[in-house]
């Protein structure tokens, strides 16, 4: 099955594409709303600001295309800010609605550790996305995260627990960077590609 990587300008698409290919994906990279709306398996990357990433989605009607695909039964994986975009809303620079595909909100870390979190962190996970790496160590770069999300399938601790990954039906999100997480990250991508 083909994997469709959404070609967001607010993301490091090249790195994620390379990792997906190494993980075995037959990949297409596109901004075309028709292709996205009809894709069976999507990846939504994102880095930097939630607001900018969400604005690009809405201005280019990618948000509607993603909703259409998910309604049709497509599988979706959000990565880093792409993961945050799946939630109901984010409180980064004011409050901005997200795609509302998983429940919960994204907030800034308010613990005692320096923000952003830059580095490796061990997660505790369950479910098919994390098969073989349930206690894996992944690479995070983030100032914002969901906490205790109802759809949480992985959590980690950064001066307090936070949601490291979510799953709601066919929609997945990972707060870390699988493309920078060496073998563990590639395993998650392989699991995603293999999941039906």
């Amino acid at each position: 099955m083909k994997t469709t990587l959404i070609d967001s300008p607010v993301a490091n698409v090249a790195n994620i594409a390379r990792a997906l290919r190494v993980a075995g994906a037959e990949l297409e990279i596109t901004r075309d709303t028709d292709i996205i709306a009809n894709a069976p398996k999507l990846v939504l990357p994102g880095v930097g600001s939630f607001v900018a990433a969400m604005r690009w989605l809405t201005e280019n009607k990618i948000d509607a295309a993603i909703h259409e695909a998910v309604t049709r039964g497509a599988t979706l994986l959000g990565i880093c800010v792409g993961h945050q975009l799946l939630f109901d809303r984010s409180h980064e620079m004011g409050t901005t609605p997200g795609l509302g595909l998983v429940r919960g909100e994204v907030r800034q870390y308010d613990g005692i550790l320096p923000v952003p979190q830059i580095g490796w962190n061990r997660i505790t996970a369950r479910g098919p996305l994390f098969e073989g790496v349930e206690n894996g160590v992944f690479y995070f770069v983030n100032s914002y995260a969901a906490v205790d999300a109802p759809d949480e399938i992985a959590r980690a601790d950064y001066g307090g627990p936070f949601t490291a990954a979510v799953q709601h039906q066919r929609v997945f999100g990972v707060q870390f960077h699988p493309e920078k997480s060496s073998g563990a990250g590639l395993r998650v991508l392989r699991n995603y590609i293999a999941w039906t």
Partner: protein
Amino acid sequence: MDVIPSIDLLDGQVVRLLHGDFARVTAYGDPETVLDTLAVPRGSRLHVVDLEASRSGRPVETAIVRRLASRGLRIQAGGGIRSLADARTWIDAGAEKVVIGTVAADAPEVMQAIVGELGAERVIAAVDVRDGIVRVAGWEREATASLAEVLARVEELGIGEVLITDISKDGAMRGPSFALYRSLRTAMRIIASGGVSTMSDVVSLSRIQSVGACVIGRALLDGRIRLAEARTLVAAPNAIPERVIPCLDVRDGRVVKGVNFVDIRDAGDPVECAVLYESAGADELVILDISATDANRSTALDVVRHVSESLFIPLTVGGGVRTIEDFRALLRAGADRVAINTAAIRNPQLIADCAREFGVQAVVLSCDAKRAGDHFEAMVRGGRESSGVDAVEWCRRAEELGAGEILLTSVDRDGTNRGYDIELLRAVTSLVKIGVIASGGAGSVEHFRDAIEAGGARAVLAASLFHDRRLSIADVKQFLASEGIPVR
């Protein structure tokens, strides 16, 4: 590990003596006010030392202990307890435990009487050590027994906790004696005391298995450590792994490594090295283009492009970055983070501009520090030229400007294999909140541990040591893990 606040009392006031000297007193006010300021919660253990009693052998601050105990604090009281009567005075005043030093070391029969009467669970043995030798009577003289003998003796009495203070470290803010605590062989819970001055010290102590608690005095009073934060940090169930980072010094497309930045020799192809290091467990890769300050830059961009295309761990690149456009070009070529050095010293605004444009996570301040008398100076142009800027202050400023991490290289230690400069690391890590990558001088697995444990570094970097295969990344990680330091 429990974190126990500690107060020393003299004339009804909370005070500190430097190196136990009654002539060098700093006063902090009355105990209740001090404890409120420190936000010591009900139910907390509190270490109380009656300094007058430790000098004269007569308990005097019993009224204060009574008051504090009635506030729900679990007090361990000490200072000059020489007899069963002294010990009983403190217990009668409401102390949960007594802390007994001199007689524990020098008068086993008195200790036995106290334990027999009060119960071993109410007694903490206190041992003051200087240069491995037990000191007694307010640190004034050497004990007759050795440290090992004293420990064996109190353990035999059924005492479960021993408070061990390294006098040379106490109140001096130079960090606790990690080596001493690691070297002790005892089944008792060690309460570490003396020198705990940063949050990182607390975390490092909590990683030493035999250390069950630490007492903190001056660092709490001075606000360097906040009690609630320290307790949260050591209670975190998922300790964040520390990173081991190989560094490729690249000149004209080839990996090289110089000793003290001169006498450069060839050590391989960058892509080959990078892939090898990732499979060996490297947590990140740093490429420093050491030709960049002198020569052309396009070769360097090609190297970054090729390396990043074969790598699935974060890549930091530095060397010769002068402008926001240089920075952008490296990110475009595949770097995750870019280190700025010389240009930032000349134009600090570059840090702020890059942080705003690319995010603080992308900005690494690379600081080459060289000892200059009693301070460290930031060097420029590959460590060759002095800048006149204080290195430690410069790191603090860079954090303020928006650097996400600091790559701190000791120019004096670089290439020497004599170990990282712990003093330099502590000077910076105690001042900034962002992570510090230790660089320069690694020669053994212990050096990596010391940089993290005593230096407070969040990552350890080495180049020639790994290139020459004198140590593997796996060797380093295995050793760190065996020392209780979490690794990936």
